[in-house]
């Protein structure tokens, strides 16, 4: 088994203009909270709030590109959003292997995204399957 309990994986992601525009272009969620600075501020935020589900794209990248085995598939995923992400925020992603189920070739990770102020932006868990 290539994975071991408590293995740690880290990666830095930036919610850049390209990511933000690409997400909106693809999914058409142009809610004012995500697009209108004034509206976002009137509702108590520092500025336009980035779509929480952009983080799910980063999770997809983690599973598909950052693991030592490429033959993987996502079985299940759960995420809780704790704080807002703003444009150009740099996010520190950390995942830890918390479960290994060799009988069904499944691996579970717990993960967090933190911003530069080390505030937890989101946390959750993800279960993947190994295809070989």
């Amino acid at each position: 088994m290539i994975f071991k309990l408590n293995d740690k994986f880290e990666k830095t992601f930036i919610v850049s203009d390209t990511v933000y525009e690409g997400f909106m272009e693809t999914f058409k969620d142009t809610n004012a909270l995500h697009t209108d600075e004034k509206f976002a501020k009137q509702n108590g935020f520092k500025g336009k709030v980035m779509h929480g589900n952009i983080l799910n794209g980063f999770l997809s990248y983690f599973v598909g590109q950052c693991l030592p085995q490429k033959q993987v598939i996502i079985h299940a995923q759960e995420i809780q959003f704790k704080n807002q992400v703003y444009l150009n925020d740099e996010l520190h992603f950390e995942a830890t292997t918390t479960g290994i189920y060799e009988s069904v070739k499944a691996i579970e990770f717990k993960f967090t995204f933190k911003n530069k102020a080390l505030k937890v932006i989101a946390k959750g868990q993800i279960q993947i399957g190994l295809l070989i």
Partner: protein
Amino acid sequence: MKISTLLKKVNNIFIDILENEDVVLTYATTACDIEDWDSLNHIQLIVAIEKEFKARFTSQEILSWNNLGEMLECLIFKIP
């Protein structure tokens, strides 16, 4: 733990994973008897059972079971 108690606990896991309150397991139940017990749910069921009972199966054990009763007999000896 009695095997009947184990059956009830595993039944609750099936209800949760399959999101079907009507699931009633017996020792003779097989995947063919339960509509949503497909390959992906099978993985989720095994993971949930292993987690709940802090037990680990091998793939050979899983392949050897002919029905739920055989799974429970295997599980009962693994519960710490």
